[in-house]
């Protein structure tokens, strides 16, 4: 259908560095990253200098930058581990942000052709989403596809896409109990499509491979809800899941779409599921309790920006969940601090 023209200067690629040597990671992605500006944020807990190959247009941020920009607030907002990338979102001034975990490389499709995850995220973000009615041929805007018989015509213009959730070949984003139970399970199924996740349907948003429209939803991707021992392994993380539910509520309220499907990345082995299983995560049980809360969450008509929405979600979290566990009250506070920080950093321009 329509041709998507990607303006390179509208995109930032944000990488959270949890390992020091980024050489092989950057080399694998070079064909797809090199056109764009990169923001690399070093995990503040990672000591020493990062090793980054030459030839990229990038800004590097470390602990000292985080401390300088965020100031004393960094007591309530933690940027450690996977959360370091949120500092990159904060510093970015671009419309579209793409982010990939540093243990992922480009994937190959069923014809063994290398896929360009960056371009695919941008295509997802720059073509309409269709959250109000399900199209059985999935994305109607891709070449060779369309809306099927019975799809209401008034809904065929679609809405803007705020978030593009990609997938993973090899080591899929399974939780530790699942991976520990099925240690041999690897995802080898390349499903060649992207679809819009319907309005009012919740999903687990994995932070491993996503793209988003920062102008529309940027403030809603935040490091607000963290487990006490939230670690450097995805098996021990819930921050992206919490943030993802907030983003979906924001998108549903603002009538923006969330897509899921291609692009895939190839995710390498790291860590041991059984080891992760041994750790205590009081937060994982807590997440079970929040699902009904998010599913029923409705925001006021006055909330017209992502910042407004996050503010409302934060007060409802405090009001409804705050009494259940102090972690929720803390999450609500962190969300409020985050929005203040987001606005402050932007106003300082």
């Amino acid at each position, binding site marked *: 259908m329509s041709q998507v023209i990607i303006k390179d200067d509208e995109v930032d690629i944000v990488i959270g560095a949890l390992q020091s040597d980024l050489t092989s990671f950057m080399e694998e992605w070079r064909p797809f990253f090199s056109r764009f500006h990169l923001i690399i944020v070093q995990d503040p807990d990672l000591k020493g200098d990062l090793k980054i190959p030459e030839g990229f247009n990038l800004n590097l941020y470390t602990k000292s930058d985080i401390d300088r920009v965020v100031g004393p607030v960094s007591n309530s907002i933690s940027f450690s581990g996977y959360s370091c990338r949120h500092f990159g979102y904060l510093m970015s001034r671009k419309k579209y942000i793409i982010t990939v975990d540093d243990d992922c490389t480009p994937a190959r499709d*069923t014809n063994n052709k290398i896929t360009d995850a960056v371009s695919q995220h941008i295509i997802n973000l720059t073509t309409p989403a269709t959250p109000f*009615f*399900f*199209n*059985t*041929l*999935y994305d109607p805007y891709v070449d*060779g*596809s*369309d*809306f*099927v*018989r*019975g*799809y*209401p*015509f*008034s*809904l065929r213009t679609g809405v803007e896409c705020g978030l593009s*959730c990609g*997938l993973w070949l090899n080591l*899929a*984003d*399974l*939780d530790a109990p*699942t991976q520990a139970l*099925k240690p041999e*399970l690897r*995802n*080898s*199924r*390349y*499903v*060649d*499509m992207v679809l819009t*996740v*319907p*309005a*009012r*349907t*919740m*999903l*687990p*948003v*994995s932070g491993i491979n996503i793209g988003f429209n920062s102008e529309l939803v940027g403030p809603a991707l935040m490091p607000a809800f963290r487990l006490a021992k939230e670690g450097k392994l*995805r*098996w021990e*993380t*819930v921050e*992206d*899941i919490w943030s*993802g539910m907030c983003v979906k509520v924001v998108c549903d309220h603002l009538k923006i779409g969330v897509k*899921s499907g291609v692009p895939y990345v190839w995710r390498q082995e790291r860590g041991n599921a059984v080891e992760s299983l041994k750790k205590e995560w009081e937060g994982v049980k807590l*997440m*079970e309790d929040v*699902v009904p809360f998010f599913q029923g969450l409705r925001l006021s008509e006055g909330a017209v920006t992502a910042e407004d929405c996050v503010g409302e979600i934060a007060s409802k979290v405090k009001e409804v969940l705050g009494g259940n566990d102090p972690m929720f009250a803390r999450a609500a506070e962190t969300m409020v601090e985050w929005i203040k920080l987001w606005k402050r950093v932007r106003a300082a321009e």
Partner: protein
Amino acid sequence: MAAAPPPLKDELDIVIPTIRNLDFLEMWRPFFEQYHLIIVQDGDPSKTISVPQGFDYELYNRNDINRILGPKASCISFKDSACRCFGYMVSKKKYIFTIDDDCFVAKDPTGKQINALEQHIKNLLCPSTPLFFNTLYDPFREGADFVRGYPFSLREGVPTAVSHGLWMNIPDYDAPTQLVKPRERNTRYVDAVLTIPKGTLFPMCGMNLAFDRDLIGPAMYFGLMGDGQPIGRYDDMWAGWCIKVICDHLGLGVKTGLPYIWHSKASNPFVNLKKEYKGIFWQEEIIPFFQSATLSKESTTVQKCYVELSKQVKETLGKVDPYFVKLADAMETWIQAWDDLNPAKAN
């Protein structure tokens, strides 16, 4: 080596509406021959439809439908494939697979022939997950599972009522799209089965469809289409919207995706446009109606849900066009006919 008997061999009927011939069954023989067929012959009942040798079947033409249902036969469409729902009503099996007579065996990307029936059965026999979206699609498929962040309390899933398959080659487009893109063919094999989330409607195509009669059968009425009716090509759509509202209400799942069949015939888009024309406008009122339809908690069976829905159709959509008043009455007639032919089993 003795082969295992085909799955659900005595629990599933294949319902095929036809007006011309059943030559297409030859290609399906390896996959269908062991199953019982219900042929619903539309159009001129004096014409003989020949069924290829070796198939076990029952065949109903219009005379049979009139004889069996008497005055209630008015709810079964004439000169439209919507008449197939008579086959659902008259079946005595738990599962139905329905397929159009211009649908052939498709091949997967490795070149292997796809046993569509087998995939539908797999879809129906494992749970659906309508309450939370799994980004790796059907978690019960081999090689897949629930992803991190998927609530543990929702991993049991719910029973699957409907399995909606797709089509390679001629896609199921409406007339305007067909007219604008006459050459477009579906060549993309999407290797996924997924549950359509609760609260979300979809366009259900009857070309390649399977369902659990016990769970949802009475709601699979394909409406009043064809001869003497102001609309056509909305039979399966109508059923799809009704079943989705009812499945959402009763906690049942609807899946879509695999299996693919090969759809060989593109119907005439000008003829289609005449049939669909009113539907294109009415759809704009029908969709909000279904999106906001709620059923009372007293509606605990499919029949009760359906009758309640028919009353809402009459009251709300009846204002859009008198056709919907007729349709609402036909919905009630259908339920009466269904209950006549399918008396409740003694406990």
